[in-house]
């Protein structure tokens, strides 16, 4: 190991208590040559390198944490001035250049689409994970599903939107259900993989106990395994929901966006909180940008609440194990 070279560098500065009677290649650093420990330091160059690297690493942390603080702080600041009951409950004003109004159409749209996507992707995802852990295990089908679920988590979300456009919008037009379909495609691989990890943690002894009592496989899964893994699965699901609520790109070509408050599930374009923020960010008008900030604050609060609750859930369930 190169440690040897490192240790062999320049002589150590010692207290001048004993002249080195003979020079050895350790430069008097060995204990037997009578050098004292108190005040002994490694070579200056090494010390300097150590301090410099520590400094760089600390600055990496600081530089990384600064954006965190800045984002939270500025969104809170800029968003708070426009935020209010009006904002939360009203739609965009007739003329976008004017101040006032709100993003409620986006809020409703996000709620509908994320809700629909959740209803579909969570049961399907959990059952898929059940297949991977309880039935497929290591067979070729399970390995394939795992691999491609991982691949799918890396697919750009805009491509998912493009796909849903080619598959559904050409036939059915824009709508909330279409947008929800895109979101569900994004959520499902996440839920499958995180649920799989949680199901794997259920101890074998619990399953043994259930089978020994004469439970069938499906009974063991639904009455013992899934309830045991439920806290962890819920965490994964909440994180997936937070992710879906924050998606913009796939909704551009599936929900399209709308300035009106829409509650229809199909056949009419619908907006989302994210789409409205995007439009506001691009608009050259003060008022529109102010609304975008408030929208960002609203979205951030929603996403952070889900994320933090999910994590608290996760740590609490680990404790009770």
């Amino acid at each position, binding site marked *: 190991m190169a440690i040897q070279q490192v240790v062999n560098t320049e002589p150590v500065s010692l207290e001048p208590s004993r002249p080195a009677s003979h020079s050895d290649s350790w430069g008097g650093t060995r204990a037997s040559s009578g050098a004292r420990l108190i005040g002994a330091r490694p070579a200056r160059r090494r010390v300097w390198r150590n301090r410099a690297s520590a400094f760089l690493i600390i600055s990496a942390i600081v530089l990384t944490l600064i954006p965190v603080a800045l984002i939270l702080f500025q969104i809170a600041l800029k968003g708070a001035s426009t935020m209010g009951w009006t904002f939360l409950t009203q739609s965009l004003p007739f003329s976008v250049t004017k101040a006032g109004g709100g993003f409620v159409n986006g809020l409703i749209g996000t709620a509908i689409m994320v809700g629909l996507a959740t209803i579909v992707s969570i049961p399907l995802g959990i059952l898929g994970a059940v297949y991977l852990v309880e039935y497929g295990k290591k067979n070729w089908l399970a390995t394939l599903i795992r691999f491609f679920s991982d691949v799918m988590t890396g697919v750009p979300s805009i491509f998912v939107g493009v796909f849903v456009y080619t598959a559904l919008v050409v036939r059915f037009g824009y709508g909330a259900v279409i947008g929800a379909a895109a979101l569900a495609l994004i959520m499902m691989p996440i839920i499958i993989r995180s649920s799989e990890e949680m199901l794997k943690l259920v101890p074998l*002894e*619990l399953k043994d106990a259930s089978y020994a009592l*004469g439970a*069938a496989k499906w009974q063991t899964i639904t009455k013992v395994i899934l309830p045991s893994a439920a806290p962890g699965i819920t965490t994964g699901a909440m994180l997936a929901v937070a992710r879906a609520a924050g998606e913009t790109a796939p909704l551009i070509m599936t929900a399209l966006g709308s300035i009106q408050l829409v509650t229809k599930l199909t056949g009419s374009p619908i907006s989302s909180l994210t789409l409205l923020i995007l439009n506001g960010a691009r608009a050259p008008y003060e008022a529109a940008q102010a609304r975008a900030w408030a929208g960002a604050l609203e979205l951030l609060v929603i996403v952070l609440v889900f994320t933090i609750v999910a994590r608290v859930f996760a740590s609490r369930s680990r404790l009770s194990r």
Partner: protein
Amino acid sequence: MNPDTSLGNAPVFAVKDLDVHYGSSLALKGVSMEIHPRRITAIIGPSGCGKSTLIRCFNRMNELIPGARVSGEILYHGENIYAPGVDPVMVRRRIGMVFQRPNPFPKSIYENVAFGAKINGYKGDMDELVERSLRRAALWDEVKNELKKSALDLSGGQQQRLCIARAIAVEPDVILMDEPASALDPIATVRIEDLMQELKKDYSIIIVTHNMQQAARVSDETAFLYTEVDEKTSARWGIMVEFGETSNIFTKPTDKRTEDYVSGRFG
């Protein structure tokens, strides 16, 4: 599903020439024995000789391990549980099992005991069934006011008695116990052993134990398993060396290997 008391002394189980393979390796070879009603039968032997494998054959739990294969017969009240067309789920409903480490479900005490009955479609008075089972497992007095409490809050010994109550609740006539006290402290162990003597009145019990003294204290009949080795391939498998009344096994064993084991010459 009441314990069948009309059996008299006909064996509950008759094991005939049982072989167990895990994948391509042999684990148990040529085991033959009988389990008699309302008696405690102990299975003893050095570690790794296949005691757990054997006891898990009685309720077809070995099949949960991928690659496990059983040949031979085990007759339960005269019917071969390994006959084609026999559903292992139904086998397990008649035969209860308690494991080495207590494994209550992360549910309430009540839910644990009621679990087996619920999945079997029990239509009677559940409260009464739970109380009866907990009484028989000598746990009722300690938990009767806290049935909704989580089973995980109980001590190790209490959890094991809860597992026994849970197994009893489906009214089996045999209880299999795979080293039921090895994870418990000595006081809890004594309670389990006393409980076994009580349970013996209504159930036939098979117990695996690595503790010879426990086997001698508790059981009526004992089976001694030992490992055979093939010198050429160094494959190992378990065989039954001797089976009989516990007092004979421990004082007048007929096989030298049995004698060496019970006198502590190897463990």
